[in-house]
């Protein structure tokens, strides 16, 4: 075996070992590295009320309601398997619309309602020009409705 081939073998073996180690580590991190719980995962995780957590999913179409005080917004977050009701006091982001993605930071209260201190809107991977937007807006909502069903 020439020295060049020996070095090549060494680099390949080292690379395979390294990639294997990283994949194992990522597998181990899988649940810890998630930025938020989806509703089904949240209900399964049995998080005690009052513990700060993040909840993410789609805003259930037709669920957004403004409370009488004008600053509290109520809506439901869904992942197609489960739905969690959320209340949030404050200004909602521009991208917060029915059927869009949302990440809320807050805690569950004793009644199972998620009380959010902070809302982040999530943009999806679709980029659609505004001219097509009016036609598409309906499509997005019906699409997410079918997704949730």
């Amino acid at each position, binding site marked *: 075996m020439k020295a*060049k081939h020996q*070095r*090549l073998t060494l*680099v390949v073996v*080292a*690379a395979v070992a*390294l*990639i294997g180690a*990283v994949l194992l580590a*990522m597998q181990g991190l*899988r649940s810890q*590295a*998630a*930025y*938020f*719980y*989806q509703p089904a995962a949240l209900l399964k995780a049995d998080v005690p009320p009052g513990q700060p957590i993040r909840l*993410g999913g789609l805003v259930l179409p037709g669920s957004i309601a403004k409370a009488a005080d004008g600053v509290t917004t109520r809506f439901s977050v869904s992942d197609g398997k489960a739905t969690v009701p959320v209340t949030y006091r404050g200004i909602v*982001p*521009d*991208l917060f*619309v029915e059927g*869009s*993605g949302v*990440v809320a930071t807050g805690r569950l209260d004793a009644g199972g309602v998620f009380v959010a201190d902070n*809302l*982040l*809107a*999530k*943009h*999806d*991977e*679709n*980029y*659609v*020009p*505004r*001219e*097509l*937007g009016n036609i*598409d*807006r309906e499509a997005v909502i019906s699409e997410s409705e079918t997704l949730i069903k």
Partner: protein
Amino acid sequence: MHRFANPTRFLKLARPLTWICFWSGLALVLGACIWGLAAAPADRLMGDTVRILYIHVPTAWLGMGGWVAIALASIVQLVWRHPLAGIAARAAAMPGAVFAGLCLLSGSIWGRPTWGAWWVWDGRLTSMLILFFLYIGYIALVNASSERGQTSRTAAIFGIVGAVNIPIINRSVVWWETVHQPPSITLSGSSIDSAFLWPLLASVIGFSLLFGAIVLMRMRAALADIRVEARLQRLAAA
């Protein structure tokens, strides 16, 4: 590849190639920016903020591409002992770091109006920040090396090991729940409307050509440095 082991032969090709890459890249980038800022449509949800796309995506692509180049060149350096490989790896570090930094910056500016936050510690943003720190570490290691920079094996090993972060960045939005959206352009197609996609493609190609030009310039500067040093040593010996 060993045809170019001779620096003189490499320089003969690199000199015209630098300027071809530089001017065509600059023209494409300017054209793409005008196209993206003035002619391309606004997004249905994000409005005009979508125009950051034409800077954010190319810088992210080159921030990651720069490290892939470092890793590949480091393998060539370690296995085949190609004299130019180490020089190429070190030449890609600084522009790679700059593009990774620009990606973080443009992403942060984009995140504030769309998500409602300058920064979140999700998988994508955190792994990209780690890439930026890896670049800084690599540059520091190359500069601190007591061996001549272009033959440092420590830096080459660091370059190869650091490459594990690249697939992590790429897969982060698929593996973990993140605020950053999943990839728009995949092997099965693109979910970006063609009205955005064409200026984006022009911008990505343009920035890539500029990146190539910068790497070639830095390689030529490094070769010139080596020559100066050799000549000074010869003068001192005489």
